[in-house]
């Protein structure tokens, strides 16, 4: 594995290896191990063109816990905001000796360009590109599901997951559909027709416009963030109507199976796609997802950089 650009490029075996590695690394944390040595001497750059404190800190923590050196490069206030191109930024990072670049960008496909253009020689990890993918989010979601449903081992065969919200604009949805189906889970997408992309019926997931018919039999409900601004482009008439028809409130949550969990990639719009009571309920594993993010990102970085150069 040289790059991690898309959840879709992982085979079932590779995905399970990442999850198993994350399990071992999480255990090391519980055992009180401080830093682990395998990335000593490696330089990892966080190249974040979009503001995202949570994901950036998660990657930074992961890299540092593996003893890598971390350089944070955020778009605000840097040469990027003065109009420097991705190419020139990449060439600078290469000159600085980056072994890997973790990139978050608002343009779908930017990590692909970085990986395949010949500007850098190191590995590229996609930390979220436009509306395309967010592979480490899908991995930590799968890790969380596996912990709750499969006792932390194997795949997700037989698990049923409903993903509810703005699928059209969601990179989390795309990565999750790809990874969950690779791991054998059954995925159901729930959204108003305006928020489902043309061609979604080819994704290998069920599609429904009705949340009440879609969550009673699943093992997990994953709520996606829905931006109020989508109202102005007529994706839905009002925030109120969206929340009424598609929001996860306590009444809906109580129709779920006893063991079923509620997930959200964050940041949440409390009151929009998810009510505050649901977010804070005992079914909600939202906080665990964040913790699992560090272990999973450690696993990805270890597998990419812990061995031969440019595997």
């Amino acid at each position, binding site marked *: 594995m040289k790059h991690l650009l898309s959840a879709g490029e992982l085979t079932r075996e590779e995905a399970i*290896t990442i999850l*198993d*590695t994350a399990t*071992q*690394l999480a*255990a*090391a944390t519980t*055992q*009180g*191990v*401080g830093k*682990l*040595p*395998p990335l000593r001497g490696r330089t990892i750059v966080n190249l974040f063109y979009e503001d995202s404190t949570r994901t950036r800190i998660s990657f930074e923590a992961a890299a540092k816990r593996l003893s890598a050196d971390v350089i944070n490069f955020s778009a605000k206030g840097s040469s990027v905001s003065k109009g420097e191109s991705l190419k020139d930024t990449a060439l600078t990072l290469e000159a600085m000796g980056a072994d890997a670049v973790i990139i978050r960008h608002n343009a779908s496909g930017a990590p692909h360009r970085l990986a395949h253009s010949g500007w850098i020689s190191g590995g590229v990890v996609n930390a979220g590109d436009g509306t395309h993918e967010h592979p480490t989010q899908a991995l930590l979601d799968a890790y969380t599901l596996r912990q709750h449903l499969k006792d932390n081992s194997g795949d997700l065969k037989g698990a049923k997951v409903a993903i509810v919200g703005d699928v059209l604009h969601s990179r989390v949805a795309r990565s999750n559909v790809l990874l969950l189906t690779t791991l054998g889970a059954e995925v159901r997408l729930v959204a108003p027709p305006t928020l489902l992309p043309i061609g979604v019926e080819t994704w290998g997931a069920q599609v429904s416009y009705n949340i009440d018919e879609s969550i009673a039999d699943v093992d997990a409900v994953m709520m996606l963030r829905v931006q109020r601004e989508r109202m102005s482009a007529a994706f839905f008439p009002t925030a109120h109507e969206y929340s009424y028809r598609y929001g996860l409130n306590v009444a809906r949550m109580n129709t779920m199976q006893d063991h079923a969990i509620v997930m959200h990639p964050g940041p949440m719009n409390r009151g929009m796609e998810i009510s505050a009571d649901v977010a804070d309920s005992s079914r909600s594993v939202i906080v665990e997802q964040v913790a699992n993010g560090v272990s999973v990102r450690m696993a990805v970085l*270890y*597998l*990419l*950089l*812990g*061995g*031969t*150069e440019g*595997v």
Partner: protein
Amino acid sequence: MTHVVEPENRPSRVVLDADDMSRALTRLAHEVVERTHGASHLTLMGIPTRGADLAVRLAAKIESIQGTPVPVGALDVTMYRDDLRLRPARALLPTVVPPEGIEGRLVVLVDDVLYSGRTIRSALDALSELGRPQAVQLAVLVDRGHRELPIRADYVGKNLPTSKTEQVKVQVIERDGIDQVTIEQSS
């Protein structure tokens, strides 16, 4: 110690059969009890995969001799190896610390084959991340010589002089269906 899958037509000879292995482990168990004076603060940490399997067996034998159970765990050394950058990143194996921990205890590392000593060096680093044992000793089923670091075993099941062109393969019944140690010529 890594073991290479032996191709079908390589000549190999058995140097320890199942009975030999069992006697060796029994002898090791007696030696450990004797030299640690039936220590109450003993913990065995096996190095995965087969070192961990042998550690479990050794702990059972020690318990049958001294009457009290011995805490046993596993210590994965993958991330502490000094040859990480020579091959693609390797899958991690489980590290299991028994509830009694290792702090202030006498830890006996258990491995199947002692060769260059680098695995044990990695194990000492891994162990130091988990705490500070009172002392660390080493028990191995087979010592095949050719040390590259100043490491020695405290308890040896069998000394096996080998040449560097040979490969020592340990198989355990719980994993390989048979208990035996073989030597074969590598390419």
